[in-house]
């Protein structure tokens, strides 16, 4: 397929949109915490941009996307060597865009994934350790799983698991890592009565930027400006709206008041759940997926609140549960009229192919297990190294991380 300027134009725009999601996340998370930790929370996301971009150009992309073996890439794309203007075969398909477009687009996914995790340990994780965690986690957790799913060579790709735009690689992965992180770093001090978000407009701003940027995430994953991209755009939008509505209504019945933070959270849950499905399901499937996302993630938060796990901003409930629901729902609602694949590939339960669920389940389980174990191991090691450690001191936590770690206050006169 020759390189097409229209496809390239869309992937350029989509890459910019996906990059913009990370600051969106920074505001989404930053608004949810207490004012004394707003900058430290924003900095987790902002520095993910700084650190991951450098590491991705140097070695990350090569590990994830160079041919390598079934489990991990090799070093042939180190320093973006061979990432040039020629078309590149991605997962068995040659997209009408230069290899460089694909590498840039993928970079944006590698940034936001670890940034998602930070919601679990916000308000207490050490900044210095975090920077090292970023590098290790991208290298040892993100790059391999991305290789499994998206590289033509990857073993999950091989078994026919469907993941259009990153439900496993990005969301289940981040959601599960969040559990490991929240567990190891421990509960925040003094949050028995919950935390009242310090700036809800920022939460909505963040969610809105995420919604906007997610069109790049999902519709950009078509790597072309074609009907598949349009369908991904449409179903993304549909599932998101449905989930926002569902969450708002459920919270209304449950707490007597429809929460704005809830509506925003529902939107994010919908965005998460539709991600793996967006290239394979139609608008009615999207309604179902969005409805499930709003419902399951809402109750996910409910359950988490009753545990001792202080996953501060509910990363697992939204990205973990939303991601798992999305992965399974892809196996249910994928229809060949949308996916355009050769059956049985791209065919789900409602199109008469229940075996697809099996591939989806394996993908979920593999991501879940690998991410949990390796994230746990990385954090344990970091905790052990003298001078590092995961958690700030009690005094720093009470004062707030902004002043104590960054020497700044979010707001002044």
């Amino acid at each position: 397929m020759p390189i097409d300027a229209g496809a390239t134009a869309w992937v350029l725009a989509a890459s910019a949109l996906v990059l913009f999601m990370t600051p969106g996340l920074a505001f989404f998370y930053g608004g949810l915490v207490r004012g004394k930790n707003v900058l430290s929370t924003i900095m987790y996301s902002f520095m993910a941009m700084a650190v991951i971009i450098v590491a991705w150009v140097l070695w990350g992309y090569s590990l994830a996307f160079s041919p390598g073996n079934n489990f991990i890439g090799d070093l042939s794309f180190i320093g973006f060597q061979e990432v040039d203007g020629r078309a590149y075969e991605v997962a068995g398909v040659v997209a009408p865009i230069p290899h460089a477009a694909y590498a840039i687009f993928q970079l944006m996914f590698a940034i936001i994934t670890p940034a998602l995790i930070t919601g679990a340990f916000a308000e207490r994780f050490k900044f210095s350790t975090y920077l090292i965690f970023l590098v290790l986690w991208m290298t040892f957790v993100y790059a391999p799983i991305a290789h499994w799913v998206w590289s033509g060579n990857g073993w999950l790709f091989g078994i026919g698991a469907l993941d259009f735009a990153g439900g496993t690689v990005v969301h289940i992965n981040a959601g599960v890592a969040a559990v490991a992180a929240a567990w190891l770093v421990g509960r925040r001090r003094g949050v028995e009565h919950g935390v009242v978000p310090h700036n809800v407009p920022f939460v909505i701003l963040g969610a809105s930027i995420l919604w906007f940027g997610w069109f790049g995430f999902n519709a950009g994953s078509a790597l072309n400006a074609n009907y598949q991209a349009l369908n991904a755009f449409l179903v993304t939008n549909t599932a998101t709206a449905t989930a926002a509505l569902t969450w708002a209504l459920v919270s209304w019945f449950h707490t007597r008041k429809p929460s704005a933070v809830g509506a925003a959270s529902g939107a994010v849950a919908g965005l998460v759940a539709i991600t793996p499905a967006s290239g394979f399901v139609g608008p009615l499937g999207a309604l179902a997926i969005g409805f499930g996302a709003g419902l399951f993630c809402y109750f996910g938060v409910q359950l988490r609140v009753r545990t001792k796990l202080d996953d501060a901003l509910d990363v697992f409930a939204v990205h973990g549960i939303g991601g798992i629901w999305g992965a399974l729902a892809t196996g249910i609602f994928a229809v060949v009229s949308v996916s355009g694949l050769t059956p049985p590939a791209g065919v789900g339960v409602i199109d008469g192919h229940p075996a697809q669920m099996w591939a989806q389940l394996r993908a979920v389980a593999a991501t879940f297990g690998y991410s949990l174990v390796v994230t746990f191991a990385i954090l344990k090691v970091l905790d052990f190294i003298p001078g590092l450690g995961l958690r700030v001191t009690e005094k720093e936590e009470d004062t707030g991380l902004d002043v104590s770690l960054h020497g700044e206050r979010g707001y002044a006169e």
Partner: protein
Amino acid sequence: MKKIEAIVRPERVQAVVDALEKVGCVGLNVTQVTGRGRQKGVVVHTGRGVETTQINMLPKSRIETVVADADVEKVIEAIIGAARTNATGAIGDGKIFVSPVLEAIRVSSGERGDAAI
């Protein structure tokens, strides 16, 4: 001189300030406080909006004015008149405290005493 400190509902501040002006009490200052009295608080969401918490402290406004001894009663009356939500008064309408002030000084002129307030 006395300091009169009225803690009232934020939405009644404008009315109280206007009422004070009518009785000749021009100098005053207002602070935002959160307070607790017999009034029940409000329930607000925490986290992702699935949990709620009871907040017992409500936003209130504190109006402080230093007045000559002779004016205390009429100022109190003016405040009560303007601060009540309705004719009979409701829980949460607020409190007034009176305390002694020994001296007042106007910075610009150095004047002291009742002349300065």
